[in-house]
């Protein structure tokens, strides 16, 4: 299987499959014609229309706020979960925490969304909090599944990390809190940055869970896009997609180059 034509052809076709739809999305965002897939000449008019669309801009602002808050809280909780699972050995409830920190990764979104909504409604009836649904409930929901992703990334970094550094600090008399902040955290920091970024994009991207737990007046960007796209293809969505893809591609490639450089310098 290592030789011959089969493998390279399969790989090339696989990458065409992954990238062709994205490339066509970008190309047709510069299309003059409203008929998204018929070429009517080069134009940037859809970008102009996008920037004048108050509904989309408002939703984008809400999404950014939600993503920033959820990614930050999720990074804290996910890191703690990962630290506890990799450094604390056996404790009561370990298996439970392992399960709860991994199941959100694969749990179908409709189940997570509906069950969280029902929790918020029951809590409001019995505890009086959260009053109504909106930004807060979306942030809590996103934090929960994003924390699971951060926990996975942080755990793999904590496992790979050389524990003798922490032992040395302890032998020199540092307390557990100091060891964590002075040794562990700086070492795993790049992984946490990656985790934060992943959490940020996952939150920015979520439609299903947000639809369940949001209230009136708190429509996130995916919710607005979805209601537009449901009615058919629309060129300003292509323009929006191109902007998002551009930002993501530039930042992922930059991060990749930076990590490689660092690895070269250290290695």
């Amino acid at each position, binding site marked *: *299987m*290592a030789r011959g034509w089969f*493998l390279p052809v*399969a790989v090339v076709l*696989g*990458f065409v*499959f*992954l990238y062709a*739809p*994205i490339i*066509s*999305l970008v190309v047709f965002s510069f299309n003059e014609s409203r008929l998204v*897939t*018929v070429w009517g000449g080069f134009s940037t008019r859809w970008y102009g229309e996008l920037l004048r669309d108050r509904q989309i801009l408002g939703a984008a602002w809400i999404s950014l706020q939600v993503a920033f808050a959820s990614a930050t809280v999720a990074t804290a*909780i996910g890191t*703690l979960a990962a*630290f*506890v699972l990799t450094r*604390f050995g056996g404790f009561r409830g370990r298996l*439970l*925490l392992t399960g*709860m*920190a*991994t*199941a*959100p990764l*694969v*749990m*179908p*979104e*409709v*189940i997570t969304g*509906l*069950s969280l909504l*029902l*929790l918020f409604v029951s809590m409001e*009836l019995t505890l009086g909090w959260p009053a109504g649904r909106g930004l807060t409930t979306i942030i809590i929901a996103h*934090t*929960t599944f994003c*924390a699971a992703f951060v926990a996975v990334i942080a755990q793999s970094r904590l496992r790979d990390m050389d524990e003798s550094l922490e032992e040395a600090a302890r032998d020199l008399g540092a307390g*557990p*809190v*100091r060891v964590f902040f002075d040794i562990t955290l700086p070492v795993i920091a790049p992984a946490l940055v990656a985790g934060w970024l992943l959490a940020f994009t996952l939150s*920015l*991207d979520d*439609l299903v869970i947000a*639809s369940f737990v949001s209230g009136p007046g708190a429509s996130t960007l*995916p919710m607005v*896009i*979805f209601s537009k*796209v*449901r009615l058919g*293809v629309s060129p300003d969505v292509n323009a*929006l*997609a191109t902007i*998002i*893809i551009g930002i*993501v591609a530039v930042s*992922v490639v930059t991060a*990749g180059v930076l990590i490689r450089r660092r690895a070269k310098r250290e290695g």
Partner: protein
Amino acid sequence: MNALTRSPVWRGTAWLFGRLGLSGRGLVIAIPMLWFLVFFLVPFFVLGRISLAEPRIALPPYTPLFERGPDGSLQIIASLENYWFLWEDALYRNAYLSSIRIAVISTVFALLIGYPIAYYIARSPEPRQSILLLMVILPFWTSFLLRVYAWMGFLRREGVINNMLMSMGVIDTPLVMLQTDFAVLIGIVYTYLPFMILPLYANLTKLDSAHLEAAADLGASPMVTFFTVTLPLSMPGIIAGSMLVFIPAIGEYVIPALLGGPDTLMIGRVLWDEFFSSRDWPVASAVAIVMLVLVVAPIMWLQSVQNRRELD
């Protein structure tokens, strides 16, 4: 940091927790534990409890679990009626079966497409390996919704594929691809392909090449080596990747809603409509609980595979 641990506030708090019988260690465990308990585990119990209620037109739109009877006694109101309703109505049964069928078929296709790619990447020299890996992950970072939307432009009647085939003269009339089960399959395979490739790659890259050399030395052809050595050894990667595709695919809503036709039955879509259109919360909860039962076994399998990998 030293300044912080020496500050009176810090010491006071530490003393207080000590008096309450809470160690720092216990507190560190408690934070993530409580968060996931309250916002991940408890919601399932709420879900289960509301699946036993009856719908009513009020706020909240379901009957309470406890109610005072006419004589003042506390009564528990719970019925399995919603589950009986799901069992009796062919719509729900077919939706579950069709979801499982679509999820299984897309998992198989994701495996068939993903395995060669993962194998090729794992066998590539650096820096090609890192670049290819980055190319697999890159689409995963861009919006999932927009990637599904991209397929709408590809598959529709006046879409890219039809235009291309017509201009090449392969077909005279446009093919109907959008709003079919076929489109849903493509959408699922496309969306979840990175989830298949990454665990496979992680597994294949650790494969000891000594095994392959030994097989070759003993006269096995590359084909025989692949099927008798590589494939069995990569089983944990195959299981992990397949479960990462299968489990979310079962409950998928966005893909059937955008790419599927009105007759594409998937349980995630049925749940969504039951909740947002019919506003029947108890039935929607029952649908979710049955779906949860369906995915629990695959989730356990995934976790046991991952635990074994950690022990190795």
